[in-house]
């Protein structure tokens, strides 16, 4: 995948350049001594050249002290001076400089830096336990190869001294988690780990103090080392995806221009907007809170809020929801709700409620642990009692019990799941799909119904001219000439999709908000826009329920041509639906758009069932209804209105063009324009599910072989260490087979779909 193909333009381009100096200043945080730090997300950086281009462009600005690109998170951190000798600096020049260098840049609020700290702590623990394991192993090898008496004792004591701090420091993750679970009267995989590690250390210490032959320091430390690797991989995978998702732009506006009673304007943060405040919204800005238009006329794009794809005209008195994009005219707007009570926040609340339902999902590893750890404890206890009562030697019985705990310790089991998931996440990342956490792949593998949103998901949310009805020759050229003067999505589509012909000359052109464009040539008046605007009252509009958007060109009130627009289908949408069908998954469309439009798209793509005009709440209800029927729903959507459904579904996917909240709610995010990402992700998820099952089988098979040896009392430290490492290595090697799978063609049983259903790699 090339990062250059990450086309997030349709949504982001609108918000890319609208940041003012005030907004940028609001987004940066002070470092003291007149310095401020600004974090920007730059989704396009993908190579070394990008790094040096951006850093050089920023360093060229006089007030920039330091600029550093983080390629992993696709972020730029820039430290600048608030004031120079010439006066206050304008930080929006930083954005301008990045734009000028050819990259899109967006303001970015860093999420909690806490996650990074956890990763560093885990890495530190891996380092410490690795160091301890290596040194103790060296000493152990000397013991095994024949050191005896005083030398052996000394080696054991040194091992004990190395192991103690390492166990306390590196083992605290497991001890803490085990203690938390035990407090609530449950058990998980961390309980046998903690028990085995502490018990084996205690017994080894006791053995050492009594000049015993064997000690298990090496086993307990290297066990921790292996398990920490698994845990770190698990954590790193989750964080990597999260950082990159956060790195993409935020769509919610940060503030707005407040109209003061004395007529002046002041930029304030969204949280400070009070009910009754009058704010001014320029064309191209997003509405920050719910409110009513006081003055001005414009078209607003509600596609992110409701999913309705055509723009809606608003005038004084119209109510507008937060998140809507103001397209053509500037508006003065009175807030009727606080930011925290606005639609945006309501949707977030709905989402949180829906997510509560999904939190009940239990990971495979936890489910395995619930079965495995009681069995292990029981086995250790039985061997302890049996050796004690039958053999009479309680010290030996204790050693055998510890050996059983160590050998059955879920080292391979601990690695079985995270290794496969990291490899699978890497494979998906190469295909342009980001996974948020490990349980996503498990849930994705179970999905049996795919619910799609329409606008922005199956379609690009970008209108396309499909039909022209001209009454007079040459009228298309006139319409094109008019349309070049507007930024309205339909005008842009008209310019893009008509032939490049010489544009006629107009004396004057004006854009009338809420209507369209008006041009004068001599005594003639041309109008391009909605039917009512173009033809006045003489024109009787056709049934408003047509699946296409319509634009009319008129000359002195008589219509010359009509243009019909449809939304562009996302590339690969039909193939993706076909592949899903072939793989036995049901398809469903849930959209907030009109039923006729929805039916039209469903027919074009061959989707089984299409539901239109749904509110965000109804989408959630549909997901819940399906899951009550025992289905596992994969929801694919992008808008704000899909976010609650994304959170409620069993598993969810969103394109990178999705709204910020949509991306946050989704479990997977795909960067390619093509919808093929959906079946591809399912293929990888199903493969990784089968590899995880194989790994469990391997790990359990190892136990079946090793446990009898331990119970029989034959497990020397050497055997335990070798067996443990071998099982881990086998599990890791098996996980790497996922890459080899990638070279084979797609979902099984695709032959039925007639060859075209083969999975294409991006």
């Amino acid at each position, binding site marked *: 995948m090339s990062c250059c193909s990450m086309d997030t333009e349709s949504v982001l381009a609108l918000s890319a350049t609208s940041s003012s100096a005030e907004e940028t200043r609001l987004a940066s945080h002070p470092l003291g001594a007149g310095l401020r730090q600004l974090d920007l997300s730059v989704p396009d950086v993908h*190579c*070394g050249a990008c*790094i*040096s281009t951006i*850093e*050089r462009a920023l*360093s060229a600005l006089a007030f920039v002290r330091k600029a550093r*690109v*983080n*390629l*992993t*998170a696709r972020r730029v951190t820039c430290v600048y001076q608030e004031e120079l000798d010439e006066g206050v600096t304008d930080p929006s020049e930083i954005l301008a400089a990045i734009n000028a260098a050819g990259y899109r840049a967006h303001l970015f609020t860093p999420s909690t830096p806490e996650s*990074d700290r956890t990763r*560093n702590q885990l*890495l*530190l623990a891996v*380092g*410490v336990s690795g*160091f301890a394991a*290596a*040194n103790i192993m*060296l000493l152990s090898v000397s013991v095994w190869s024949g050191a005896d008496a005083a*030398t052996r004792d*000394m080696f054991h004591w*040194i091992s004990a001294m*190395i192991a103690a701090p390492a166990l306390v420091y590196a083992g605290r993750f497991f001890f803490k988690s085990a203690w938390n679970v035990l407090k609530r009267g449950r058990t998980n995989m961390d309980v046998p780990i903690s028990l085995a590690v502490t018990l084996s250390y205690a017994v080894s210490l006791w053995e050492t103090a009594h000049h015993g032959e064997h000690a298990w320091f090496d086993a307990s430390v290297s066990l921790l080392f292996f398990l920490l690797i698994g845990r770190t991989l698990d954590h790193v995978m989750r964080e990597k995806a999260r950082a990159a998702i956060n790195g993409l732009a935020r769509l919610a506006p940060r503030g707005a221009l407040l109209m003061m009673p004395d007529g002046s304007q002041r930029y304030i943060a969204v949280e400070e907007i009070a009910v009754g405040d009058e704010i001014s919204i320029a064309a191209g800005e997003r509405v920050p809170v719910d409110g009513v238009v006081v003055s001005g006329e414009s078209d607003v794009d509600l596609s992110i809020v409701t999913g309705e794809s055509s723009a809606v005209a608003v005038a004084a008195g119209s109510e507008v929801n937060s998140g809507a994009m103001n397209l053509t005219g500037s508006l003065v707007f009175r807030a009727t709700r606080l930011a925290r009570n606005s639609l945006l926040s309501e949707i977030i609340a709905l989402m949180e409620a829906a997510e509560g339902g999904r939190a009940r999902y239990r990971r495979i590893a936890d489910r395995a642990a619930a079965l495995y750890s009681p069995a292990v404890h029981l086995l250790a206890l039985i061997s302890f009692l049996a050796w004690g009562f039958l053999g009479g030697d309680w010290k030996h019985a204790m050693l055998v019990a510890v050996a059983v705990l160590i050998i059955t310790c879920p080292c391979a089991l601990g690695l079985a799941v995270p290794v496969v998931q990291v490899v699978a996440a890497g494979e998906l990342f190469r295909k342009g799909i980001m996974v948020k956490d490990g349980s996503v792949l498990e849930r994705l593998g179970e999905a049996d119904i795919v619910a799609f949103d329409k606008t922005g998901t199956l379609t690009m949310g970008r209108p396309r001219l499909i039909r022209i009805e001209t009454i007079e020759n040459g009228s298309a050229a006139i319409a094109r000439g008019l349309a070049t003067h507007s930024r309205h999505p339909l005008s842009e589509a008209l310019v893009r999709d008509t032939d490049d012909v010489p544009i006629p000359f107009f004396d004057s052109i004006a854009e009338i908000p809420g209507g369209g464009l008006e041009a004068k040539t001599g005594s003639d008046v041309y109008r391009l826009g909605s039917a009512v605007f173009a033809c006045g009252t003489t024109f009787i509009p056709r049934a408003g329920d047509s699946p296409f958007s319509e634009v009319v060109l008129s000359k002195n009130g008589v219509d010359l041509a009509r243009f019909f627009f449809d939304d562009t289908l996302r590339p690969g949408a039909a193939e993706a639906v076909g592949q899903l069908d072939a793989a036995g998954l049901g398809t469903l469309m849930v959209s907030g758009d009109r039923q006729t439009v929805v039916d039209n798209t469903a027919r074009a793509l061959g989707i089984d069932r299409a539901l239109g005009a749904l509110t965000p709440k109804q989408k959630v209800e549909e997901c819940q209804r399906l899951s009550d029927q025992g289905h596992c729903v994969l929801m694919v959507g992008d808008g704000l209105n899909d976010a609650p459904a994304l959170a409620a579904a069993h598993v969810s996917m969103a394109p990178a063009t999705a709204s910020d909240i949509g991306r946050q709610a989704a479990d997977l995010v795909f960067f390619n324009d093509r919808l093929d990402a959906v079946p591809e992700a399912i293929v990888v998820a199903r493969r990784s599910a089968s590899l995880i099952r194989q790994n469990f089988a391997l790990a359990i098979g190892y136990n079946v072989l090793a446990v009898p040896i331990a119970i029989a009392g034959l497990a020397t430290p050497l055997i335990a260490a070798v067996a443990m490492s071998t099982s881990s290595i086998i599990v890791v090697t098996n996980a790497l087979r996922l890459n080899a799978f990638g070279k084979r063609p797609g979902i099984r049983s695709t032959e039925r779909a007639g060859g075209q259903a083969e999975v294409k790699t991006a």
Partner: protein
Amino acid sequence: MNMLIYLIPIALLMGGMGLLAFLWSLKSGQYDDLEGAAWRILGEDEADRKKP
């Protein structure tokens, strides 16, 4: 046997130095951007484009 009294502390010391180096690199943020670091090797020296 007498050798061990010197050799073991030396081995531990060297291992400990490796560990300290790892801790230092972690603390100084060298693992924050692994992808970028791989590309930066190929770039020009940062010293070349320091501002006057």
